[in-house]
């Protein structure tokens, strides 16, 4: 399934949708349970995305050739 590729935003949106659906409680029990399962999985996914994230900082640089490149950037401490 495409689940793996969900962005945090998408995962979060799906999660809210699942919770709302479950709260409305209009689906059959087995569907409720599979929604719950999906929700729990998304929850874990979101948390692990937060845990694993590492900030990436680059700087745009104009080469002498006029070409634009991105180089790693670390701001100097003052």
């Amino acid at each position, binding site marked *: 399934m495409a689940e793996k590729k969900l962005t945090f935003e998408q995962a979060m949106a799906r*999660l809210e949708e699942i*919770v709302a659906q479950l709260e409305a409680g209009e689906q059959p029990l087995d569907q409720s349970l599979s929604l719950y399962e999906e929700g729990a999985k998304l929850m874990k996914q979101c*948390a692990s995305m937060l845990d694993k994230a590492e900030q990436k900082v680059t700087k745009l*640089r104009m080469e002498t050739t006029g070409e634009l490149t991105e180089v790693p950037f670390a701001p100097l401490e003052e």
Partner: protein
Amino acid sequence: MNEPISVTALNQYVKGLLDRDRLLGRVYVCGEISNYKRYPSGHHYFSLKDAESAIRCVLFRREAAALRFQPENGMKVVVSGRVSVYPRDGAYQLYCAQMTPDGVGELALAFEQLKTRLHREGLFDPARKKPLPPYPKRIALVTSPAGAAVRDMIRILGARWPMTEVLVVPVRVQGEEAPGEIAAALDLVNALDLADLIITGRGGGSMEDLWAFNEEEVARAVFRSHIPVISAVGHEPDITISDYVADRRASTPSNAAELAVPDQEELRETLDHLYRRLDRAVDRRLQRQRDALVRLSGSPFLRSPLRTVQEKRMTLDLYRQRLVNALDRQTGAHRQSVARLAAALDALSPFKVLGRGYAIPYREDGAVLASIRQVKAGDPVDIRVSDGTIHCRAEGKEKHQWQKRS
């Protein structure tokens, strides 16, 4: 001096007089602008007047371009320059070197003017403001790569939402080159689609230091950006034209970083909250199912088949009992018949009489001796009595007379 001279010569003579005058070479004049005209050449012409008098003034292209505010009719200004003659018209006029607003600061006036103009043009229209992406993938920081502002922004972005990439687009943020660089950087990020959110700004400074963000060039670049822009210039009380045009104004660069991305701590709380809701919802769902089950199992619809089964089982038990009883009765009857027959048999048994003193003689080969003809003297004879057998030997034999009669 009776010789007539040419008009040109006269004008040149007067011009010479004025040009040589030390006072007229550098005057400061205050007055109100009227008849202000901009020519395609770039020169500006106007009159400066007070209650009684007026003087023609000219502001050449180079000086006009250096003005930060826009001169308007009725505006009170102080002009510095020299007085000379324009020989072609024979008119003396004030050649302006500088013009400053009278009473208000030049920058303040320029700010107000641009603000009014852009506002009228609709650049501040709230309806034109783009929403910020809730989870930006990449933020372009159009700012100076040195200094506290960029460092603070990167630190706060990283702490709150490290999933967002940060691209620093280095520009000068003060000085003459700054507005052009900032505007070009904004256009570049848009043209190459380098980010889905832009923060442009700088740390605090004087009004002069922050001026680039009050330039029309920057304001227009912010306005035409199809990528949402957060403006973050100076400290809390500093408001620039960029702030008005931007999709969102941040009071400081740090504040911009806070506005730009969600806080992961809050998101984790939201996640926990969602998890509790998810749990509760599914619990409720299960409870409802349980309740339904209990309700159903209590209903006569579900109970009656069970009762029927029980009733059938009871009937079955009854039948089985009757069958057993019937069988029992039958075997009882048989048993009685057998007993009767056995008793009858028993009564007929020849062995029955042995108890009463009768005995049965057997020959050696097992045949019962019923006649004297079956033995001769010396033959072994077994005599069966009620409790055993006596082994004997025939001594002799004698025929009885009554035997003949029967």
